[in-house]
């Protein structure tokens, strides 16, 4: 390189960029162990008490400053989130994969229409989709609750699975399928023995992405969740709106760990193939 100073400047920017991305997260994790009961950002001592208190255990700190809303509410939000995420992931993965197979495999007149339709939910601003689903459910008398959240999430998660599986299909060696057909396998056997094993990493990746997006979705869920079916992000958003409490640090740290674990799992599956 003829201009080492330029390169150094770029590296400096790169490190600052990484710092900007990670510093906020690291701050929250570090201060979730801070025992200062009044100002969360003044370091006092190391403590696990916030973690204990979010699970409803009495601690020294929470005796003085009874903060946590209700562990029951938190746990039911977690349960709702998991229920919604697991159901939507299953449904969206099956439907999204089927759609990807159809679009990739066949040539038909409506193909561009379908491709447009499938990309639309991903570019549609969250608030527009949330509002549209809300007025739709209310207009047709659908009760807002877990079911409405599941339907709402599926409308955009099908698209995400479709995109990931399509990418995998596009990278697939199609001669293998032809060979299988030439050797006398019927279409179902070809799918089961040849196509499916090859696109499995794409399906797993799409499913993990759908799961993580469903667990994380705030805006759409916010509009279509009923009164007694709050998910974790909506619950935390509600807590934040009422004021910042040290327990949120601990909850946030646990959620961080969970998201990183899912992302690591995704990376593992990608590496293995």
């Amino acid at each position, binding site marked *: 390189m003829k*201009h080492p100073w*330029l*390169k150094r400047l*770029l*590296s400096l*920017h*790169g490190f600052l*960029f990484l710092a*900007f991305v990670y510093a*906020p*997260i690291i*701050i*929250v994790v570090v*201060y979730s162990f801070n025992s200062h009961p009044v*100002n969360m*950002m003044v370091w006092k001592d190391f403590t696990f008490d916030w973690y204990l208190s979010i699970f409803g255990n009495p601690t020294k700190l929470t005796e003085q400053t009874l903060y946590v809303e209700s562990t029951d509410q938190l746990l039911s939000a977690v349960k709702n989130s998991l229920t919604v995420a697991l159901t939507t992931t299953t449904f969206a993965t*099956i*439907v999204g994969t*089927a*759609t990807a197979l*159809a679009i990739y*495999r*066949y040539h*038909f007149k409506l193909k561009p229409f*379908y491709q447009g*339709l*499938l990309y639309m939910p991903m*570019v549609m*601003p*969250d*608030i*527009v989709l949330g*509002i*549209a*689903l*809300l*007025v*739709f459910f209310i207009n047709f008398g659908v009760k807002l609750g877990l079911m409405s959240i599941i*339907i709402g999430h*599926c*409308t955009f998660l*099908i698209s995400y699975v479709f995109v990931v599986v399509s990418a995998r299909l596009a990278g697939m060696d199609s001669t293998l399928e032809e060979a299988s057909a030439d050797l006398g396998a019927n*279409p179902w056997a070809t799918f089961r023995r040849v196509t499916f094993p090859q696109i499995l990493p794409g399906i797993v990746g799409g499913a993990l992405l759908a799961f993580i997006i469903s667990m*994380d979705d*705030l*805006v759409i869920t916010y509009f279509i969740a009923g009164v007694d079916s709050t998910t*974790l*992000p909506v619950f*935390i*958003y509600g807590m*934040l709106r009422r004021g*910042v409490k040290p327990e*949120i*640090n601990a909850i*946030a740290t646990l*959620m*961080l760990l969970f*998201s*990183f674990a899912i*992302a690591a799992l995704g990376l593992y599956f990608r590496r293995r193939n």
Partner: protein
Amino acid sequence: MATKRDLRSLSTLLTPSTLFLGVFFLGPLAVMVIFSFLEPGIYGGVVWNFYHWNYGRILGWADGEWEDFDPVYIDIFLRSVRLALTNVGITLLVCYPAALWVSGLSVRWRTFVVFIITLPFFVSLVVRLFCWVLILRPSGFLSTSLMGLGIISEPIDIIYTETAVLIGMAYILLPFMFLPLYASIEKLDHSLLEASADLGANPFQTFWRVILPCTLPGIAAGAVLVFIPSLGNFIVPDLLGGAKVMMIGNLIEQQFLSARNWPFGSALSVMIMLVMFMLIVFYLRRIGRSEIVR
């Protein structure tokens, strides 16, 4: 070429998504558009009469009876557009050099750094914004540490300003700018850069004349992907902007959750959707379909 069996398996594969997206995606959008032309009920809900003053209230005509034209709505709309555009500018300025840096690393480091950069964005949005609430509050990390260092004597109040909203929005939307930029910079033909240098261009000339024009599709894709979610955002202005920095998303949320004027809220949503469609059409016409698929 299409045999009967092909047709049958095609329809089997497509039916679930057709039905589902038809009913639960296109259906709701249609209902929303219809609602935006209906009369608001006095206690929420809608009255099934054609009523175009929902749009008039925003754009400048009104019946003067139920709905009044109020320039405040246009102001909020324009502010949202301005903040979204500023956010596009900020993310572009932050991500472009970063993407250049990553593309200059060795192949092994490149994959790793891209992974490291995208990793935090799998973390819940609400958690990432909470981080910034903690940092920007008057009793937050920034104030406390600056005071601890003796740089300032009184707590600084960044939260509930446009600056705070812009920081938060840039933070949550960084990867939408970074990834398309990085994809287009990585594809750059390095012999072009060498040719430019051999012909006597300095690094800045090479950048302006070669690198920037070649990566324009990536810039456009990133700009669209950042602009759309910025425009309708209501979580960031709500948590970091407070009542002072109201954006169109907050206005819509109010119409549904407190003002109970659904047709007006629907009309505002339809306007966001129209802006989005215009952008996408413009983008597809100018840049081509292939880029958005990535």
